């Protein structure tokens, strides 16, 4: 992990090193970006980018789907005075232009609009979530590159060190308590009958890896890192601990208890059902810290036979 981090850090810094003179040049997924000075007015068009900017101690002037961020990502907190520029799939270009940003952060999901965004301000394209990507590495790259771009390199490193320390500390705790086995299935309920199972290409996988845990679900999911499936699919992974991520469906525990499918399920019989507060599964590096903390706490506290 730490070697991984260093090579990546060095790699991104070399990439990011100023060419010469005052103007700095950065290559990214959408081309090359030239900056004369660290940008001050930044617009973030997805929540991973919003989170990363806030981690660096920078408040963006505008973000996409502002109320959604405060409801779903929550942490780090978004100040109330930030402007909302519309939805994440179709933001209002005119509103972005009105904010007169000097940097726009977006992903390849917005690729059809790149040309138009470039007319407003230099646009930095980085996709934490896209086919064949490793979300945590990409999120870390985004943090480091934005740190360098915005003159916050120290802060970026501090954030990563903090996360690394937390992960190491939690890993030791789990090892001492002998809690590294059996494998973990991270699931969230969509309704009484359907779940999302977070797969090995999810952001969460980074937390599992660093904590010395294994993901019980064998296959890869979509590029957001999950598989939507019927609840009965968890029967395919009997030797696992089921970690249920909030929010829960109302009345879930009662309806599960009524079904022998659930009460006979090996993890249920072994009292290996855990419930943890939500971390935004499609966010940036900070979500890993949140998940590592809540997951370790839950595992150390011990499981139960239902989602309570």
């Amino acid at each position, binding site marked *: 992990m730490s070697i991984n981090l260093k090579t990546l850090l060095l790699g991104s810094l070399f990439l990011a090193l100023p060419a010469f003179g005052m103007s700095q040049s950065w290559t990214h997924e959408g081309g090359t970006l030239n900056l004369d000075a660290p940008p001050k007015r930044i617009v973030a068009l997805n929540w991973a980018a919003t989170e990363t900017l806030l981690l660096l101690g920078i408040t963006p002037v505008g973000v996409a789907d502002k109320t*959604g961020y405060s*409801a*779903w990502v929550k942490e780090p907190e978004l100040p109330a005075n930030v*402007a*909302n*520029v*519309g*939805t*994440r*799939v*179709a*933001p*209002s*270009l*005119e*509103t972005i*232009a*009105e*904010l007169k940003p000097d940097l726009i952060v977006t992903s390849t*999901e917005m690729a*059809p*609009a790149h*040309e*138009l965004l470039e*007319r407003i301000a230099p646009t930095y394209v980085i996709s934490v979530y896209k086919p064949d990507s490793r979300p945590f590495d990409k999120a870390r790259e985004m943090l480091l590159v934005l740190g360098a771009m915005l003159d916050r390199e120290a802060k970026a490193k501090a954030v990563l060190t903090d996360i690394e320390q937390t992960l190491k500390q939690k890993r030791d705790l789990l090892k001492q308590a002998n809690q590294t086995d059996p494998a973990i299935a991270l699931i969230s309920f*969509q*309704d009484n*009958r*359907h779940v*999302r*199972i977070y797969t090995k290409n999810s952001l969460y996988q980074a937390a599992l890896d660093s904590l010395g845990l294994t993901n019980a679900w064998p*296959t*890869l*999911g*979509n*590029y*957001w890192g*999950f*598989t*939507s*499936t*019927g*609840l*009965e*699919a968890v*029967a*395919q992974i*009997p030797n696992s601990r089921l970690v249920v991520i909030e929010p829960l*469906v*109302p*009345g879930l525990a009662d*309806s599960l208890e*009524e*079904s*022998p*499918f*659930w009460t*006979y*399920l*090996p993890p249920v019989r072994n009292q290996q059902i855990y419930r943890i507060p939500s971390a935004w599964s499609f966010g940036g590096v900070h979500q890993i810290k949140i998940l590592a903390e809540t997951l370790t706490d839950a595992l150390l506290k011990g499981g139960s036979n239902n989602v309570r």
Partner: protein
Amino acid sequence: MSGEAPLATPSRPKMPTRLPAAIILLCLLAFFASALPWLQQLSPLQLVSIFWSYDGDEYASVLAHFSWAPRISMALLIGCALGLSGAITQQILGNPLASPTTLGVESGGQFGITMATLFAPGLLALSPDIAAVAGGLLAIGLVILLTWRLGFSPVTVILAGLVVTFFLGAINMALLLIKGEWLGNLFIWGAGSLAQNNWSPFFDLLPKVLIIATLMLTLVRPLQLLQLGQTSASALGAKVSLLRATSLFLVVAMTSVVVSRVGVVAFVGLAAPVLARLLGARTLTERLFWSTLAGAGILLAADTLAYWTTLLSDGSLVPTGTSTALIGGPIILLALQGFRNDHHMPGHDASPTGFLPPRRNPFQIAGLLSALLAITIVLSMSWSPGLEGWNWTPLTQWTDAWVWRGPRLMAAILAGMALGMAGTLIQRMTGNPMGSPELLGISGGAALVMVALALAGLDLGRAGQLAAATLGACGALGLLLLLARKHRFSGNQLLLGGLALYVFMDAGLRLAMATGGTVASKLLNWMYGSTWLISEIEAFSLLALVVSLGGVTLLTLRPLTLLPLGETSASALGLQVPRARLLLLLLAAALTAASTVVIGPLSFVGLIAPHLARVLGQQTVGKQLIAAALAGGLLLAIADYLARLLVYPNQLPAGLLAALVGGLYFLWGLGRHGKN
């Protein structure tokens, strides 16, 4: 199976043995395919007994008893319920295309649940049925209200049902787009999934289905009288309207109860009676009985298909709603072969004489439409919401505003004009005032090709997209013309194009919705037209394209006037019919494709604009073309403006708004047309 000739039995037509054989075979095959994965873990005998018992020491047995067996039972129960509802609906309306899906009941149920999730979650926890039934009643209420004066004329009812489906579907989509994260579970529910982990949903649903089915069966005798026709039935003492209303209410109740449990499982209620009839079910009792069983077989087969595909895609859920749509499409097309062409589109037999508003001066009308268009352009360019509230942009600052407001407005207007002209061309070619690129599936042909391209991950750029879309539109239109040669462009065949398009698009959308992530939102945004992505260059190339196509269209006035006279008269007047047809076909396809790339396939503008031109008194081809182009441009200009400001700073796809406005106009027009 047997070669028995039905014609040879003079007295009482005998039911061909292939009917029970085929349907029972379907059920058994589906059941066997579904049981196959379990046979590795359990013996066949165990697997049968799994329906009433399980062995607590063997988890495979518990799993089969609580997930597989209830899923099979649920599929059979719901299949029966929908099959019966479908057969009853077809009997009430005397129309082979009537079904809970095509009448908008399923969309209505979904609409009710979506609204309840957003605004009254308490009601949903209390009983999902109330919300679903209310939505279903709203849908069927709209259909009835609109077709009241026409005495439920069969095709009008289906048309109204389709429009209500599109309309409520559009509202559903708008809510999903704006409130996506909050409605996450609705994505799966809306896609229709039969996954189970307990018997309680089945035993909860069973009594409701049984009660409604019993009530339906008490109506069989009076329904038989309906076969004699409305007048004779009334003479025999049947209260036709009351009977229809009661039966429809039962159909709505049945469908909504099902929808509230497992989501939208579309087309089973349409396909089952069609299959039963195709296999030779004749009397009402036969049709009701075999449709019910066929429904069970079709849904079980579809669900098994979904289950297998789910297994093959590493456990990622493939909803049953997708596979029913995929199975429903071919059955509808199959049905086409079997139907006599005895239904007429509303206004078809009366057209054009029955539908002639007073002629008006074309210059006045064109002037009026142009003035309205100019006002919309000025408003759209100048009066806009911003971060500090609404503000007025004076003409001097239009160059700045142009970048963000200009190209999209221009593209929207051009797409509207293209659709207006395409609609007029198609109405003239088919001689049918209800023909339109949307309802006939020509836009759908263009859209299907583009969706396929998007799903395959190919990015061809706008020009490539346009070429591909034109190809798709040509394909769809060509297919229609081929059918037309056989069926003479009227009645059900005409609707089938639109319906089949709807079926397949539906299947794709459901799949994307269930997989989750942003694929669905992106697809939805595109399907309903994302004018916000259009750049100046694209807008100007569209201008060049539409102007040149429009120019060519004006050269085709003579063939357009002559073609509706019939092939013989037209060639007698010196027209080279095949060549003229081909030219018009290409023109209509290109115009449709150009607009579909910008505004998506579901805007209704191609239906409304020519209609509006007629209402405004422009009867001859040339005048109608110009007025329709202006009206289409005006409609989409307004839609684009509203799309930008209604939910500022969020925006809606302009095509979605056009579909909402267009749907309303069409519904109103249908009702008004009935009064004449």
